[in-house]
């Protein structure tokens, strides 16, 4: 192992000390050109003397950075010239932890990554594990539809929180209260179903932890009846307001080519007009049996990203209504003795069931050798889980492709030439969750 601890500095350095390529990247420009090609174009953008500019740190404690994101901004007056996101302040080695936990315990770990859409994290982890086990086609129907129900409700709660934080960042402080209020309604349903508001560990390899509680349908219907009215309120409060439009339209623009090159997914990619939604384009669960629209934008600006999320809440409500019609009776988990613990009642009467229960919770189940990558559409974009197994009960390597981690690379690009005040709008419109950025 090399004793060299680092090969470079994480912080933004003076222009004179860095290569042209690094400068271009920090300027967020000329993405697809090599250094030689860029040199042929002539001069890099002339931003004037370096003593005319100022480098300031925004974050990691700045409230609008949604956690502990730190941005180094090079400013000329109020205009942002360069931007470098510096992350890692919330790094807790969750991928390393994932290698210590069995496949059964893994859900408790991954659910804490994107803490605003925990059920999607659990879902992708469970789907990857099931694919390795070869049982991905045998999951009972009710479990599949329940997973869809929870996933869509989770998308709604996540986007509702985005409405709140986006409003707060831009000065619509009452919006913050409204957004949190509606999200709380969804979380109350989650609490009833899973026992917890967040970090549920409810979706597990093989199915779910429990069946839906009595009266769940009424709760969902109440939610669906309440929300449209509230979303109308959001429209009145924000969408049509001249101040709101002024602050978002034309801010943080990104083109489809740039978004694709940077690997951006989710609302950021869709805001540029690229119709790509894994629910429709690479359907998983039963999304191909459901009728819904993929919401896309036109200009790739912060307003489009806001409008997409607002309308995705409406699409999710449409999906949830259809799920209610489809929800079959049946088992909520696979009856495969390998992955499913015996029912509680059996433990009292059967010694074998007791041993089986004990073994599955202490040792876990063995997963055949192999490696898979499974991706689903989380509220923030493509969340993927890569698991390599060596045949033991713990993953040999568990990697999460976190959408926020990749999306954050768009920031320098979106901010170049904008104002510091717009920087807040841009960060907010990317909707990063630092828990999954740093993992």
């Amino acid at each position: 192992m090399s004793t060299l601890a680092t090969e470079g500095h994480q912080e933004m350095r003076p222009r004179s000390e860095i290569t042209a390529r690094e400068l271009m990247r920090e300027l967020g420009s000329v993405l697809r050109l090599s250094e030689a090609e860029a040199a042929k174009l002539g001069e890099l953008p002339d931003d004037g003397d370096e003593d005319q500019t100022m480098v300031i740190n925004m974050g990691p404690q700045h409230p609008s950075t949604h956690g502990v994101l730190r941005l180094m901004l090079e400013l000329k007056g109020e205009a942002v010239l360069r931007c470098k996101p510096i992350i890692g302040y919330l790094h807790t080695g969750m991928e390393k932890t994932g290698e210590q936990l069995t496949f059964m315990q893994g859900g408790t770990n991954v659910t804490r990554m994107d803490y605003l859409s925990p059920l999607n994290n659990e879902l992708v982890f469970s789907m990857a594990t099931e694919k390795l086990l070869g049982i991905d086609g045998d999951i009972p129907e009710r479990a599949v539809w329940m997973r869809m129900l929870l996933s869509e409700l989770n998308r709604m709660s996540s986007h509702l929180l985005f409405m709140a934080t986006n409003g707060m960042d831009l000065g619509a402080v009452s919006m913050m209260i409204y957004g949190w209020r509606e999200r709380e309604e969804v979380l109350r349903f989650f609490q009833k179903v899973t026992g917890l508001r967040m970090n549920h560990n409810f979706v597990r390899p093989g199915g779910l932890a429990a069946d839906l509680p009595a009266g769940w349908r009424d709760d969902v219907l109440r939610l669906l009846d309440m929300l449209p009215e509230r979303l109308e309120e959001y429209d009145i409060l924000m969408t049509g307001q001249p101040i709101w439009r002024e602050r978002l339209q034309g801010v943080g623009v990104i083109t489809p080519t740039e978004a694709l090159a940077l690997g951006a997914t989710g609302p950021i990619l869709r805001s540029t007009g690229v119709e790509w939604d894994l629910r429709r384009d690479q359907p998983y669960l039963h999304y191909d049996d459901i009728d819904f629209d993929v919401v896309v934008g036109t200009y790739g600006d912060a307003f489009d990203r806001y409008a997409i999320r607002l309308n995705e809440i409406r699409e999710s409500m449409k999906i949830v209504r259809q799920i209610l019609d489809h929800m079959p009776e049946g088992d909520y988990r696979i009856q495969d003795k390998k992955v499913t613990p015996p029912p509680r009642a059996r433990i009292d009467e059967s010694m074998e069931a007791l041993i089986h229960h004990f073994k599955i919770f202490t040792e876990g189940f063995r997963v055949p050798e192999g490696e898979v990558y499974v991706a689903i559409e989380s509220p923030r974009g493509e969340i993927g889980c890569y698991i390599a197994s060596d045949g033991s009960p713990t993953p040999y390597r568990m990697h999460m492709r976190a959408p926020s981690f990749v999306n954050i690379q768009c920031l320098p690009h979106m901010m170049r030439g904008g104002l510091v005040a717009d920087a807040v709008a841009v960060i907010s419109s990317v909707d990063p969750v630092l828990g999954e950025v740093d993992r």
Partner: protein
Amino acid sequence: MSDTPQDTATADSDDAADPTAVQDLHGCPLTDSRGQDVLHVSRDRWVEVVKLLADDGYAMCVDLTGVDYSRFMDRELPSGVAPERFEVVANLLDMSNRRRIRLRVQVPESDARLDSLFDVHPGTEAMERETYDMFGVSFDGHPDPSRILMPEDWDGHPLRKDYGAGAIPVQFKGAPT
């Protein structure tokens, strides 16, 4: 790796005993893992193959990460691909044909470096930094080869298998010392 890509391709077509290597694509063995396409690329053709695939439609690199296989060296690989300690895994996406392909490249411990994909897919910038940070695999041609998650003066690469998981002892009030 001793084999040239051409040798690898011929070895695969001759070797009927290897059930995993079903086809070859751009001179690299293409295997199937639970229904997913996996291409085993040699290190010297890494960027070239990714460029060829980009021309085939795989225009987006959604994920790039590493695996330290030092405790699992007898894993299943197509014949002609010699297992090394590190593997870099990239997932490419073809949106127009709605398909994915996964690339695996073997990186030896003695010379843990690989060409950067930055020129083909600028979005791999953060992912390559993360792979360097976590595994110590350097990427040649990366514009900013610094650590990304760990502090810049950190020693060691946490996701290597010889790096302990670690724990901080917790003190409880009134506990016997």
